């Protein structure tokens, strides 16, 4: 297998045409690259030269298959671990150059909700201790004030404080655990919430409850959200802008209405076609994506999707497509976009 050298070429991204460069941006990420060394000279190129911005009050969704770098991207924003290169400007400060102590306090205003609600809560702590922990660490109020805050938070996420305060996470269902996680994430009044597949471990009936709750919390506390998911149907309900990622790069950026009605990238179309339709009379005769994404250790040259794309031509192997605007607000990185 041909493996590119660690010290070798710089992986170019798919451009910055979709950046809005406004003063309202809460988070601006430029040219973010995350690479992991595995073994002597192998490199996993998890995120390659990715840029995006999130405007205050907006929900940005990031969609893609397992292994496309969604979670790595979210963690790199929180500097967990810091990216190899690029900048992450949150509220006017570049987190990548911030001293450790300042970074710790900056992180209080950006919180994360994880995929597996049961394993992301410490099973030895009661719900009261779980939510109190961040408040106590940051010295938010005395004991009585914190207790009141905890009660408010639990009420907000639809749990009865009297019934849950002294119980531990294993006594709750997945949906209830996710509510506790949300209460904990909101404890420090964050400005931004990063949700990493918050509903993919839940039943459909519970999914809808948690999605609605996140929407409510966003409205009530004026939050800005990054919402990561592999399920385009889930994303549509909650987002204002969608980024479709493939193998560490952006394929397409668009508002959900445009993206779902007129996908321009062949990968977006394939993702849409694989969502099951709950109607036996309207089954799609779609051509499915064949195979699985190539290894991020050895990504294809040019367009990274070309090895699974029906429209790929010789140009796709040679030139890296750059993001360009094909409709108002819709940007696509493809040499042969669907028109």
């Amino acid at each position, binding site marked *: 297998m041909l493996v590119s050298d660690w010290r070798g070429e710089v992986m170019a991204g798919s451009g910055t045409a979709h950046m809005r460069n406004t003063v309202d941006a809460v988070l601006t990420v430029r040219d973010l690259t995350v690479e992991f060394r595995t073994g002597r000279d192998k490199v996993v190129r998890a995120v390659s030269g990715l840029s995006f911005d999130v405007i205050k009050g907006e929900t940005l969704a990031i969609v893609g298959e*397992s292994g496309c770098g969604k979670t790595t991207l979210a963690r790199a924003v929180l500097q967990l671990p810091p990216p190899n290169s690029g900048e992450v400007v949150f509220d006017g400060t570049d987190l990548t150059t911030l001293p450790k102590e300042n970074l710790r306090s900056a992180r209080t205003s950006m919180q994360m909700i994880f995929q597996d609600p049961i394993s992301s809560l410490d099973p030895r702590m009661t719900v009261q201790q779980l939510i109190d922990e961040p408040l106590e660490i940051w010295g938010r109020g005395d004991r009585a004030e914190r207790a009141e805050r905890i009660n408010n938070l639990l009420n907000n996420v639809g749990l009865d404080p009297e019934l849950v305060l002294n119980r531990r996470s294993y006594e709750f269902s*997945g949906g209830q655990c996710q509510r506790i996680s949300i209460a904990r994430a909101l404890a420090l009044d964050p400005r931004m919430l990063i949700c990493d597949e918050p509903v993919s471990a839940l039943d*459909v*009936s519970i999914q809808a409850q948690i999605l609605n709750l996140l*929407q409510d919390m966003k409205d009530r506390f004026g939050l800005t959200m990054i919402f990561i998911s592999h399920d*385009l149907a889930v994303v549509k309900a909650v987002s204002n802008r969608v980024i479709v990622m493939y193998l560490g790069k952006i394929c397409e950026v668009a508002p959900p209405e445009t993206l779902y009605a007129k996908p321009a990238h062949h990968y977006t179309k394939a*993702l849409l076609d694989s969502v099951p339709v709950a109607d*036996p009379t309207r089954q799609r005769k779609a051509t499915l994506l064949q195979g*699985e994404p190539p290894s991020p250790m050895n990504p294809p040259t040019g367009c990274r999707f070309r090895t699974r794309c029906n429209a790929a031509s010789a140009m796709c192997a040679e030139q890296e497509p750059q993001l360009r605007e094909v409709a108002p607000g819709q940007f696509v990185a493809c040499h042969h976009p669907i028109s």
Partner: protein
Amino acid sequence: MSSLLSVKGMNINFDTSRGLLEAVRNVDLEIPAGMSVGVVGESGSGKTVMCRAAMGLLQGSNVKRSGKVVFDGRELTAMSKSEVREQFGSGMAMIFQDPMTALNPVRRIGSQVSEGLRVRLGMSKKDALARSKELLELVRIPNAAAVLKLFPFQLSGGMRQRVMIAIAISCSPKLLFADEPTTALDVTVQAQILQLLRELREDLKMSMVLVTHDLGVVAGNTDYVAVMYAGEVVEFAETKKLFADMRMPYTEALLESIPTIDQKSGARLAVIAGRLPDPTDRGAGCSFAPRCKYAQDKCRNEHPELKQDPDGHLYRCWFPIGEAK
């Protein structure tokens, strides 16, 4: 129409420290030969327990079973453990939800796929490995010869699920139980696996029980659907009829709560408020009544019996959708 598997009056209770847990209550289910039947319901509705019991996999001393299971003309519930075991592989096979943990992590793929062939069909090691390679090709695993030598951790989730399917079909079973086969997978891989199951079912003339919580998965992949709630079958019909003419409010609520790519963005999703009732205390009335938007006094006090429409559509509701209230 002859049924391959018939479940009659199945009750499965577990003795727990909290009291008797009623996991499956009075379930009747027919799986017609060559057909695919979906079993749909939320976590905890008894889908998996029902399937495992139908296969004779629930043997613990705390399990209280009653009812009759007839598979291919033979009564499983009257057989000894070892006689039931004889049915596995060539009679019935199962694929499990989590492809990450269902495979043995310290044995090579080849040895796991060929095990059934050697034990059930008495093949030699060499023949079994050759057949294993064909099976991996059948489930569209590229470079099958090399994959035989790999360990499960070297494969992706989708590939592992393909290996599970290869193992399940290795002895040409008549009936395949697929318990949430795609829940742990990405949508794109889910679509591939479902398509593979459809094709295999046609080629091998296999019947299938597809257990899932997603009505979207059921719609394109089954001929009949059984909807389960709180351990009971609450609706059963041909898939087309069920989606065209739902009778049970629970099925309707379940369908409405699925996020779709057609809905308006930013719109609120319909939810089923509340949660499943406590399995140790099933109450007197309809189990769904506390969460049902049409519930009336009768629903809370009297348990509805299974009713049947002239076209065979079964439902368990006092005030089914489409009838004057």
